[in-house]
């Protein structure tokens, strides 16, 4: 593995910052940005297995995915990395150079609470009350009147909350409780004989009737596809919003995570399909679009006692779209040997996610560097924007 591969992109970013005008190749007004938040902490090593790392197979154990080229194996990206076999659509994007993969990336948050980790991811700072995406809208050079940002869902995620006008949209009939939430409710009732009994009866009945979407494994995924399609239609409208936030849950895979198949594979397949739906709904506007897929933190490298993984630190992030200079994996790979792991358990973070955010905001939306430092990500000077993320 070549630890230096990463510096190519970083160096170019530094140059772009020094000469901001050069990087502004496209008209910021036409650019679309979609941020997909995967809540629950995506296992980055499952989505993007480091198949070239000599310690990968041993460290992942039952969760390891077979090498590219074998039946059910991972989908090759380069000599070191591959995509989970469920991510066929994304693999196609990669081959068309429309997908950039970041690995061993994390926000500066180093605890392991979902709530706080998601706050950090969305606020771009500790204890902020509004989101970095909203702050970027507020500082767009040619802020147009009307709502520039939309969240697909019934509530406004923190990422889009703030002074700039934004809106939300959700289908009138939101899906029922998802499979992951139902699993957790089962745990919640473990010590309550009456509720536990009734709950298992209800699940059994739903399974027989096949009526309730909440029980099927593909259920949460369907909801995401629906929202992704809607996001595409909103952004494709000439006078519509330019920035959208999509949320997806069910990534907190503490138990029975699965490898090439199983729970997480189903989730990933749903994500993959949703992103394909988004692209087709965007139509020709896809060429002006960048989609950022991020999660609050990663998961433990080793499998836990319930065939899952626990809260970790670094994960992967994806950037795809017609506007993206894709076909590369950007990573300063920390390695998977026992001594390489963060606190002896997690993938060590070597890239500040804010560098990706800042690079996209600058090159794609045209947010001025000074604004990025002062307003959007205060105190982030050390995290220089990554350059060369967008095709010119």
């Amino acid at each position, binding site marked *: 593995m070549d630890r230096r591969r990463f510096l190519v992109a970083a160096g170019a970013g530094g140059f772009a910052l020094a000469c901001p005008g050069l990087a502004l190749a496209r008209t910021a007004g036409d650019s679309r940005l979609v941020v997909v938040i995967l*809540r*629950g*902490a995506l296992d980055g090593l499952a989505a993007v297995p480091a198949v070239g790392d000599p310690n990968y197979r041993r460290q992942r154990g039952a969760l390891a995915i077979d090498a590219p080229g074998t039946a059910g194996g991972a989908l090759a990206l380069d000599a070191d990395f591959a995509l989970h076999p469920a991510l066929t659509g994304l693999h196609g994007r990669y081959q068309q150079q429309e997908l950039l993969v970041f690995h061993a990336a994390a926000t500066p948050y180093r605890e392991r*609470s*979902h*709530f706080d980790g*998601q706050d950090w991811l969305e606020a771009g700072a500790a204890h902020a009350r509004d989101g970095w995406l909203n702050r970027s809208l507020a500082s767009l050079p040619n802020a147009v009147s009307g709502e520039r940002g939309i969240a697909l*869902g*019934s*509530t*406004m*995620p*923190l990422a889009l909350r703030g002074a700039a006008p934004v809106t939300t949209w*959700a289908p009138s009939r*939101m899906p*029922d*409780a*998802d499979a*992951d*939430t*139902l699993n*957790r*409710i089962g*745990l*919640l*009732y*473990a*010590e*309550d004989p*009456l*509720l536990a009994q*009734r*709950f298992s*009866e*209800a699940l059994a*009945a*739903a399974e027989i009737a096949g009526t*309730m979407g*909440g029980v099927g494994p593909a259920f949460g995924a369907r909801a995401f596809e629906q929202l992704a399609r809607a996001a595409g239609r909103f952004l494709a409208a000439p006078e519509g919003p330019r920035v959208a936030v999509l949320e997806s*849950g*069910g*990534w*907190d895979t503490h138990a029975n995570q699965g490898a090439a198949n199983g729970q997480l594979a189903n989730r990933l397949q749903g994500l993959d399909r949703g992103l394909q739906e988004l692209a087709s709904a965007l139509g020709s506007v896809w060429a002006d679009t960048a989609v950022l897929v991020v999660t609050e933190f990663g998961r433990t490298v080793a499998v836990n006692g319930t065939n899952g993984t626990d809260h970790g630190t670094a994960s992967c992030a994806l950037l795809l779209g017609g506007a993206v200079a894709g076909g590369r994996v950007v990573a300063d790979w920390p390695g998977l040997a026992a001594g390489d792991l963060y606190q002896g358990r997690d993938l060590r973070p070597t890239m500040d996610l804010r560098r990706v955010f800042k690079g996209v905001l600058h090159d794609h939306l045209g947010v001025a560097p000074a604004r990025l430092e002062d307003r959007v990500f205060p105190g982030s000077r050390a995290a220089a924007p990554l350059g060369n993320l967008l095709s010119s």
Partner: protein
Amino acid sequence: MAARTDNAIAVNRFGLGARPGEIMAPGHDPRGWLLAQVDRPQPLPAAVQALPPSAQVLAEFQAVRQQMRQARRDAKDVDPVQQVRNTLAPAYRAQVMARYAAAAKTDAPFHERCVHFWTNHFAVSADKPPVTALAGGLENEAIRPHVTGNFADMLLAVEQHPAMLMYLDNQASIGPNSTAAKRAARFRRTQRKLDINENLGREILELHTLGVGGGYTQQDVISLAKTLTGWSVGGGQGPLREGVPGEFQFRAKIHEPGAQTVLDKRYPQQGLKQGQAVLRELAVQPATARFLATKLVRHFVADEPPAAAVDRVAAAYLHSGGELQASYAALIDSPEAWAEPLAKLKTPHDYLVSAVRALDVQPRGDRQVVGSLMLMGQPAYRPGSPAGWPDTAADWDGADGLMKRIEWAGAVGRRVGGSVDPVQRGDAVLGPVFSDDSRMWISRAESRTQGLTLLLASPEFLRR
């Protein structure tokens, strides 16, 4: 200061479920906090004040019916079902919204729960037109003014309210020896024999006062029904239409003349006073005291009412001559009421109200409230029978009902989710009864939204 378990019981079981911080409101005196809410009449909630009176609603309905008759005579094409629905449905929705808006915000939640308790005791069902548009009126006009007063006054107000009279068909109950019946027989105005309708009389004995097994006979039912002949509603059409439209109207012409005997007591009074005298006597019967005490204890203490608490409440009721305040005080003073937190499974109504209060949101849009209650199986003001909604866990703990609540919790979580910390909110509304186990699972939720759903679906939140 940490809230004590007694505070959680006061706010969540006797009250309507804590709003954030309310669990501290009872301070060191949860019993005093409850008593203070029922020691005098409470002002009518603002949302309820804004509603038109039942008489006006009913008069409008009568006018629409009149127009429909005219239209039919003129051979115009009108859909009667649609017409009725168009008149009644908006009034029903407004009343439901007012009820739940008041419940969401009240600072006297024990008082409000007592209102809901008596409305269910004196149940009418909105699925029978025109009761659809009157059920809220029964609660606001007949129950509320007497909820801290004497049971006999509430009983009289309820049995004279158009909602109850029309729900149990008493306006069609005619004394066989009344002036009107005799004249009809003489002139052969009708094929049908004019006679009493026992419905209201029976339900008063069986459901409102003595209770099943309260020692009354079929003859008592008939006699009581005869004393109530002529208890009717003003307006309408036909020969019996005198009186203010929509208001209670005593029609002497159809009242059965003569003395009646109920529970071995003879009532020689004439006219309206006769039925009123019977009702006042029924209100202070030991069987009534026991029946009401049992229902109160079942609602506020446990599904299996502890005998000692029932005895205490019944005694207080009897000794005070049916004073409700004294009865509530005996209930609150019962140690059994404070022995077991979370003794009751919430009904869907309890559940919705407590969730709205816990989230500190004003219910928006009648569809949300009306639809949610329907989905969870307890449509507002629509118990479907004069017996009202049942009041034990076994009636509400069905698997499907549980899943409906979970789905609803999921939808509400998504609607309010991200901005509420579910663990903090659990502490704020459940206080000491929030279990370490639930706390842990909720803190491990993958998002705040999911955490809030788990809080609303938690065993502690499903109970009171």
